[in-house]
């Protein structure tokens, strides 16, 4: 889980908010239904075309606005990582809880192009284009976040905490 490889989806806009990722009007529906509308106002083909393992690349302040669980839509669609110029802390924390890495990486929008195949190395934070080797370094994740991602999210992290406490 320390390395992710997939197709890059580029959303160059800044301030993509969770009203665009996870629409409240569908919030009562099963997540599989909600996810069909994920980011539809920016790219109507995204939800139907994105493949498991793909990486969402975006501008500054990705996931701003409501603290709703917008990461669930991306997980449902199989998105393996978000790499944005910067990430809203609410989205970052929610995503971390669900085991979805959301990296802040200044320069990523300029460095990558739609359809690039990218590798995201969660340990050293490097984002690399697989065919020609272009790469950008993301801002290192806090140790705590890296540890939780190694567990795959909050539940498995808690299992380890509780196991340690009970033994």
């Amino acid at each position, binding site marked *: 889980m320390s390395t992710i490889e997939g197709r890059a989806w580029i959303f160059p806009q800044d*301030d993509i908010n969770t009203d665009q990722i996870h629409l409240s009007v569908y919030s009562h529906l099963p997540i599989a239904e909600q996810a069909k509308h994920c980011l539809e106002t920016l790219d109507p083909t995204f939800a139907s075309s994105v493949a498991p393992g793909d990486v969402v690349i975006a501008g500054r302040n990705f996931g701003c*606005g409501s*603290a709703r669980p917008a990461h669930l839509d991306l997980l449902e669609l199989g998105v393996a990582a978000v790499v944005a110029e910067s990430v809203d802390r609410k989205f970052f924390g929610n995503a971390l809880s669900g085991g979805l890495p959301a990296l802040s990486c200044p320069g990523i929008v300029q460095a990558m192009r739609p359809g690039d195949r990218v590798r995201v190395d969660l340990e050293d934070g490097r984002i690399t284009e697989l065919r020609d080797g272009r790469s950008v370094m993301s801002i290192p994740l806090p140790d705590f976040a890296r540890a939780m991602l190694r567990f795959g999210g909050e539940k498995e992290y808690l299992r380890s*905490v*509780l196991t340690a406490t009970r033994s």
Partner: protein
Amino acid sequence: MHALHKIIAAHATDSTAPVRPGAIVEATPDVFAIGVERNGDEIEAIEADLTELGVDELPLKDRIVAFFDHAAPAPFPAAAIGQKKWIQFFRKQGIPVADPGSGVSHLILPEQGWVGPGVLVALNDSHTPTMGAVGAYAACLAGGTLSLLAIGRYWVDVPDVVLYRLSGALQPGVLGRDVSMSVNGTVGQRGALGVAVEFGGSYVESLSMDMRFTLCNMGTEIGATASYIQPDQTTLDWVMPRARSEFRVYETDPDFTYADVRDFDISGLEPQVAKPHAPDNTVPVSEVEGIVIDQAFIGSCASGRLEDLTEAARILRGRKVHPDVRLIVTPGSREVLIEATRRGHIEVLHEANAIVTNANCGSCAALHEGVLAPGDVAISCNTRNFAGRMGPGASIYLGSPATVAASAIEGRIADPRRLAQA
């Protein structure tokens, strides 16, 4: 140290853990507030996770507040079914659930004395910084719900603190919400990204609690982790009669260095309007006057308090809402609704043909009570005007409660100063 850092330190599991910007500190909150949501799958997943982890008894049970403010009461069957699952979860755990007319979490937690100076509150709602107005550390819980339910502790990301000093006096007809929109427009949506904002200065010191909440609420729209106003006599007069437990006022050390200090002079400010589709897209009302509207909304955790309803009633007294406009007024809490009723404001609103609802989040999140159709134009004093916020394909202009009321009368965005009455 800043007062906010002292609050975090006082709640840290390890009392020797360094609380400095950038650190992540494990802590136990005084209050953990959880909302009744519409999606039953989410609470079923949480219950399954707790069972899998072998958690029967919630360690924070006595400090969990279950509120019910979004889509409250249920607007359609699927929401009712989902909400029922959430309510059943809380009841099974022996946690009382607020009724769906009690109001918005950010209002009722301070009103009912759960949140006050020095309190660490955990709540997964983006407008949690609103409660920094009483001197609490109120950052939106971002992940950590399962941790708080299972082990009673979570991780707190310690922010840098910036100081916004506001000075000057407002002209008649210009309200606290205009100030908050002006600041939002000046610094932008990323103006305070990932830092806490302390509001100070002579204007803030002169503010009522209602408008302090409005100012702190806006912290969310500029990316702030938390908002804060140092408690003073105004704060204490408001919180002390409400307190459920002893509050503690923390002071910032004189040698504390803010990451940034900005000064704002609010004298001469005109009523502000934020154009679609971002809350920092602000202009003076004169630039958008005359835009035809379909709906007007007064309410939300930004501007659903007594002072907001008072300003709206002042404009609407003896007048009627334009026949082509729906004016929806959703008080932020039952306390607000009761007091506005006592003072006669609610009658004024009814006489003007406004639609007055029970206290909740209302149409702010496109869940009920005023969802917009594609192509609709609204003027609203809700929290934010993102595309789709109050309904896909609609446009939202943000204004103060006075601007919303004036516009509802004229059927077009209007400068409330023209309609001012004693």
